[in-house]
């Protein structure tokens, strides 16, 4: 019987081995608790012995940026001064951020576009930035607005809730070789890719699924505002009909570089990277329809170490700006002083692009309006244009082909085109009434889509089925 003891002992050993392996992952929320609410107004004389701190950063930035920031920041004077020993990045989907903040587990939010941060701000998830050092940068190093777009979000209380850490503009990356191969013109405006010219097989335009890409969501919002809700959806429908729809904006860029498609919707920095990798690629800013965005950094309500968190924000807005200049990152700094550093002087190309960005003419963009329908836009787009993309593309290409080959008259073409683009009708799961996806309706269901998965699944199924049915009907008509 004694030998049977060996068994539990082995088990115990096993468990301890595994626990040992896992033990490496100590809980990351060891931000020093109980740090006083005093701000980081550090006079050089006060040399406090600070507890080692780890900052938790919620982000939408990719691994390359995370790695580089961590490497450079941990070497910096600021990290030493505040005894910040580690940065823990969580690249979580936007919906997940609130959960982390509510659970009091994160200090800083960084990257993901102004839409995401305004959403957090509206719902009270952000804490005001009050470090005099950081605030001192505003209006001097960092402009409060560029080309009409806010680089700083101030609340009604006059406090600062987020600050842009990088600039981005939206446009196309084109591959000249592929355009030539298919005899396609280089697009200059959004309408250009929403035209019959690009109705070819295989599709030569690449866009990204808005439920997976905040940058592409912003592009679609720009189009909806530039053309108006109803007309805007028609433009989006044709763009989707002409496109391959990728799961991530990075995949769009890769596809343009590899010559899989001729044109891709990208943010500027993706375009610049593409230009470096494949000389036939060019980044195009849509004429008069571009939007510049500040990509924010913000202090989260849940931070347990305000002082260190704000010190990190200060680093990102000053010294840390050089991260954007890395060859593999190529983003536009928000603080132009970085161009005066040795690292900055090595990138005259980015400086030129920066100056160009300042001059771009954008459309007037209403943040609040975009925010009110953001989720609804993403899911409606996903259901009717991404999930139904196969049917949509077939119907559209067949229609254009039939018209170009003279098989149908112009009138008939216009009629069928209108049919293809008309808004779908569906049953509102709440009222049972047949409705269309108007801007009001979108705003009404926007928040519910986030909270009620069953409601969302139901609605998306209806949208998807109605859209596919419509596209197939048009195809049937075209084929007679």
């Amino acid at each position, binding site marked *: 019987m004694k*030998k*049977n003891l060996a*068994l539990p002992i082995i088990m115990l050993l*096993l468990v301890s*081995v*595994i626990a040992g*392996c*896992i033990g*490496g992952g100590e809980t*990351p*929320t060891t931000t020093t608790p109980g740090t006083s609410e005093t701000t980081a107004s550090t006079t050089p004389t006060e040399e406090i012995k600070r507890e080692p701190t780890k900052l*938790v950063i919620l982000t939408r930035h*990719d*691994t*390359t940026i*995370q*790695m580089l920031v*961590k490497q450079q920041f941990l070497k910096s004077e600021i990290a030493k001064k505040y005894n910040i020993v580690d940065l*823990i*990045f*969580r690249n979580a*989907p936007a*919906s*997940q951020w609130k959960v982390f903040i509510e*659970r009091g*587990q994160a200090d800083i939010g960084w990257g993901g576009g102004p839409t995401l941060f305004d959403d957090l701000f509206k719902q009270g998830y952000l804490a005001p930035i009050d470090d005099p050092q950081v605030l001192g940068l505003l209006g001097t190093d960092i402009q409060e607005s560029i080309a009409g777009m806010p680089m700083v979000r101030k609340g009604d209380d006059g406090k600062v809730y987020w600050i842009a850490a990088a600039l981005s503009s939206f446009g196309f990356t084109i591959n000249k070789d592929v355009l*030539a*191969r*298919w005899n396609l013109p280089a697009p200059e405006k959004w309408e250009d890719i929403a035209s019959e010219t690009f109705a*070819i*097989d*295989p599709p030569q335009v*690449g866009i990204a*699924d808005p439920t997976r890409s905040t940058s592409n969501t912003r592009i679609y919002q720009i189009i909806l505002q530039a053309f108006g809700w109803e007309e805007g959806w028609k433009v989006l429908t044709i763009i989707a009909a002409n496109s*391959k*729809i*990728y*799961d991530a904006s*990075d*995949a769009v860029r890769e596809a343009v*570089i*590899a*010559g*899989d498609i001729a044109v891709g919707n990208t943010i500027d920095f993706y375009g610049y*990277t593409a230009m*470096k*990798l*494949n000389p*036939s690629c060019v980044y195009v800013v849509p004429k008069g329809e571009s939007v510049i965005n500040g990509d924010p950094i913000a202090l989260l309500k849940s931070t347990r170490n305000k002082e260190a968190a704000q010190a990190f924000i200060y680093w990102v807005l000053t010294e840390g700006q050089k991260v954007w200049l890395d060859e*593999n*990152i190529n983003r536009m700094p928000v603080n132009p002083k970085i161009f005066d550093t040795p690292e900055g002087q090595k990138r005259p190309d980015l400086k030129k692009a920066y100056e160009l960005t300042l001059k771009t003419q954008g459309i007037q963009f209403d943040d609040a309006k975009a925010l009110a329908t953001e989720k609804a836009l993403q899911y409606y787009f996903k259901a009717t244009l*991404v999930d139904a993309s*196969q049917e949509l*593309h*077939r119907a559209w290409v067949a229609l254009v082909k039939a018209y170009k080959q003279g098989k149908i008259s112009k009138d008939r073409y216009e009629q069928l085109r209108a049919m293809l683009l008309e808004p779908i009708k569906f049953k509102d799961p709440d009222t049972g009434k047949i409705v269309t996806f108007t801007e009001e309706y979108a705003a009404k269901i926007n928040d519910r889509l986030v909270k009620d*998965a*069953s409601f969302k*699944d139901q609605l998306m*199924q209806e949208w*998807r089925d109605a859209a596919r049915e419509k596209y197939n009907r048009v195809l049937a008509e075209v084929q007679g």
Partner: protein
Amino acid sequence: MRISKWSEKLFGTPLFEPLVAFSFLFPLLYLVVFLIVPVLAMLFIAFTYEGNFSLHWFKSILGSSYYIQLPPQGDFVTKQVTATGETIYLIRGIDFGVIINSLVVAFFVTLLASLIGTIFAFVMARYDFKGKNFFRIALFIPLLVTPFVNAYVIKRMFIEYGLVNFILHDIFQIPFRIKIDGLVGVALAQAMAYYPIVYLNAYASFINIDPTLEEQAENLGSKSFHLFRTVTFPLALPGIAAGATLVFIFSLEDLAAPIVFHGDPLAKKLMSFQIFSKFISEFGERSPEIAALSIIMLTLAILAFLGIRKYVSLRQYAMLSKGGRWKPRVSDPRPWQKVIIYVLLLPLLLFTIFPQIGVVLLAFSKQWSVTVLPHGFTTNYIKEMIINPDVRRYIVNSLVYSGSAVILIILLAVTSSYAAGRFKGALSPVLESIVILPIAVPGIVVAMGYFYFFSNLFPNTILDPVSITFNPAFVLILSYSIRRLPFAARSVYAGLQQVHVSLEESSLNLGASRWKTITGILLPLISLNVFGGGMLSFVYAMSETSTSITLGSIAIEKAPITAFMKDIMLSAAGSVNIAAALGVLLITVQIISIVVVNIITKQRYAFIGLT
């Protein structure tokens, strides 16, 4: 000592023995708690509609033409003419809707893999020809798993200006180019990766056929194809079918190929991709539609598995190392057979090992943007993999997770094999089935199940995927230990079958305890099987994708190697090469394992039937 009725009934031992009971209960409970319960947890979500039990989601899925589209839509091939006057045939496949697409792809992958695998197996088993050793080695190469990167290489082979068109159009002057994308692309990538599984199983079957059976048939006047069709093939069929089932299930659950081909909307219309995509974009949400789809996928995989199990007992081919006792029927090929071997099979073989070659080329090249092959030699990516602490960490993570999983796997495999192989209790057949069940559970279903299970039962702990404190280590070790258990379990079970029970009985009769008997007699005798099985489980744990790229990628600094590969494949520039470098590392680990297993266990075909 009291005789215990229930102990005899359940465990097959009249006296209650803790060690035997443990051997039964430990693997059984482990699999129930960490496989069956999490999967069942999804049932609750899938069967809930407006707060009540309902079949709504299943009905709406099965009734939607998005999931089941009959008759199918689209053109299998379309012809395009470019501005430069070149003709391109675009081959993508037709759309049957998400569910049937998955089945159709899995069916054709299985068919193609079985066909190629069986032909190679027959040739290798029955003919002696120059270069046979090259064939033997090369046939292992497609089995070297490099998640994502090899599918990426395959995709690049079939683009308009890729390798295939270079050969067909530029060299052989075929007046058009072809481009393969969509479902056909996915199917091709899978068939190229999985056919050696059929090959290995079929080969084992062919060499194990008793030659006297064929000789009898020949004496009765049967020959050539008739002999093959009526005698040889039916005898080999169980092995072929077993390999084919694995291919079918692997294809059904594969995520790497759909992810790589996802630019084409058709490639997205597969069950595995739909579940994955939704999981990633709406992380933390309990989508009943996707839970229902997971259940449907699971049901289909289990049906395929049971269907074939009825036909052939899976353990049958785990004992093949006994083979080769008789003089094998090997002959020299006739001239026309030589032509087939060198003109048809050799190019085919070279073609199917190209993805792995491409991965190695990519890891050592500067760039692969618009050229047929990657170009510019550099060792920077290999260096970066070793030097960069961030990259190195993922390798260490994977080694730690897989290593820990293997410890558990060995314990599970030994206990379950011992219990099921040596005792005839009511639980024996249950245990026997449940241990290989993980083969039939698609990885993405495990991932979904774990997600619901751990976030519900352990909220706000390191086990909760929606907590910032989440550490994927524990969950991944669990997942690996279950998903890769069948490999080791079958190897250990096979070893156990070869050790006669009388050896243990003598030990027990001479007064040794059960523990002494197991540790002193049985374990040393089956140690090589344990080692071989453990190694194999380790290799496949290192390259596990489904749970690694979903649950594992949540906390990126604790992610395993495959999650990192997927992450960088889709993000920063130039990173495909780093992913390829990691692929080379995986290939190296796998080759070393194969060689070590073969040397130590002296089993030439250690991998047969265990893939």
